[in-house]
């Protein structure tokens, strides 16, 4: 049953991937698509116009979107499962903000571009994660055997840091000249508009390391879910395992942010939606849901929104933000009801 539903999600990702490449403001037929890709690989004749749009725009966009979604989905599900708190996803606790703040600093203050900005984003995410971890593991954290308190502390530390970083970013944006600000804006919303094969390649390399790492840590994570004490009783080194989990999840969020900006709420939404769909917490299902959200939101932002808004192509992060905010409220309301 569960496998079926996860497979349904995987199939939906594949379907949506092809929909976003083939359909939209520029439609490509399926035979044309295969001709274009085959000819591109073999160096054969190009179809004028279509080849360029598919190979340089639509395909890298869908590839980066899918991988970003997978990375955000996994990062969110890892955090939420480890901390037993649906609010504890990297986008809510400020890790994505760390990435975007560092990127904006690099762009506005140092005039950086390209890979340097991605590198700054990565560093920013890791630095914020380290800071949050240090703040929340100080004090009486280990005294609380039930684990939820640890999660709440981490969420609060993260929300505080996110607010501070937002202030920094707003300050820099008001000081920047208009063109620099436009560059930097991508880092505040998350967008696939500048997706390229270079970014896809970097993201792909990162995922070839991180996804196997996730499957490796998934077993201990299942035990850690039972609470720190029970996990220790079953032979888990709780603190070491948690540190490895944080490192993997933060790296996932960081590489995704570096590739597409902080596409808001994808990490936060994927785990809970996957759980509702498959009936239990599932990392693969969360990854697929993450990819679905990014692909669907980007399809809407790039193809449907311009029809409604007179041609404006929205950044994908605006759509996920619009979707995510009500879900956050709904989750808060229903979670409180369950506790009561």
């Amino acid at each position, binding site marked *: 049953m569960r496998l079926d539903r996860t497979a349904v999600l995987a199939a939906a990702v594949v379907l949506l991937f092809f929909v976003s490449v083939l359909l939209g403001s520029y439609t490509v037929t399926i035979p044309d698509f295969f001709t274009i890709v085959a000819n591109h690989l073999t160096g054969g004749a190009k179809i004028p116009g279509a080849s360029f749009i598919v190979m340089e725009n639509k395909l890298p966009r869908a590839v980066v979107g899918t991988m970003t979604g997978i990375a955000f989905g996994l990062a969110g599900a890892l955090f939420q499962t480890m901390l037993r708190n649906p609010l504890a996803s990297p986008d809510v606790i400020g890790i994505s903000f760390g990435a975007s703040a560092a990127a904006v600093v690099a762009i506005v203050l140092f005039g950086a571009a390209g890979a340097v900005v991605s590198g700054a984003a990565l560093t920013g995410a890791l630095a914020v994660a380290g800071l949050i971890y240090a703040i929340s593991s100080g004090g009486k954290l280990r005294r609380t055997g039930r684990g939820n308190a640890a999660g709440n502390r981490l969420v609060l530390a993260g929300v505080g840091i996110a607010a501070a970083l937002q202030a920094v970013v707003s300050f820099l944006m008001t000081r920047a000249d208009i063109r620099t600000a436009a560059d930097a804006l991508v880092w505040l919303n998350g967008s696939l508009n500048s997706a390229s094969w270079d970014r896809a390649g970097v993201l792909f390399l990162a995922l070839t390391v991180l996804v196997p790492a996730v499957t490796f840590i998934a*077993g201990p994570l299942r035990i850690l879910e*039972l*609470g720190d*004490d029970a996990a*220790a*009783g*079953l*032979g888990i080194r709780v603190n070491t395992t948690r540190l490895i989990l944080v490192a993997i999840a933060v790296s996932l969020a960081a590489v995704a942010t570096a590739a597409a900006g902080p596409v808001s709420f994808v990490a936060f939404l994927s785990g809970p939606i996957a759980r509702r769909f498959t009936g239990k917490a599932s990392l693969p299902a969360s990854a697929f849901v993450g990819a679905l959200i990014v692909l669907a939101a980007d399809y809407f932002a790039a193809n449907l929104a311009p029809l409604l808004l007179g041609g404006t192509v929205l950044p994908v992060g605006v759509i996920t933000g619009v979707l995510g905010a009500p879900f956050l409220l709904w989750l808060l309301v229903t979670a409180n009801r369950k506790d009561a």
Partner: protein
Amino acid sequence: MAVLEAQDLTLKYHQRCVMDGLSVRIPEGRVTMIVGANACGKSTLLRGLSRLLKPAGGTVALDGKDIHERPAREVARTLGLLPQHPTAPDGITVRDLVGRGRYPHQGFFRSWTGKDDAAVQRALEATGTLELAGRDVDELSGGQRQRVWIAMALAQETDVLLLDEPTTYLDLAHQVEVLDLVTDLNRTRGTTVAIVLHDLNLAARYADHVIAMKEGAVAAMGAPEDVVTEELVREVFQLEARVIPDPVSGTPLILPIGRHHATAPELEPA
């Protein structure tokens, strides 16, 4: 058979010393009850004995080898622990939860074998939770849930099993059920059991060996008939009580006197 022994154990929580230089031995193949007033360090002792708390001094040895110097998973194959507040993940079924007790027995790639299936089956049967196997843990009553957690600890198939207040939040019938279950386990498999228990009467009934603690030190240790006396109850709990032979089991039965209901004139508080 495995021997669990603490030597000169010093345990600290955040630099605050909870116990200093304590030595205890959990007798093998017996049921040991650790009793004492609130905050006397009994749960801390259990945490120290089970790797949850790293000692600030002294050692905890399992079969003569320091448990903090052995791989965690290897220790977990011999020494099991049911903590006070384990968390059941949302939507997990009983069989899945019990199966997680097999974690320390699985290899690096964690392949699930027929041996694991058999262990889970035995644990479900022993705890009477077989008919619940397909249910969600969330749907169960408190008593059923506690039996499921015990089943998880049983599936671990350890020679030593530590339980931290396994009867908390259970009504009397379920408390007795849980303790009977643990006794079955001890008698049929020879598992060494150590339980932190609040209820002194049930502890005296079910224990082969009692460790009474006061302010982080051992106040008395031994068979319940020898240890559970009016003097001990006064010393450890600051409670005036009569101790009589339990008409059901012959074990010591503690009858607190209190200030209001004593009828015999010699029991009136001075």
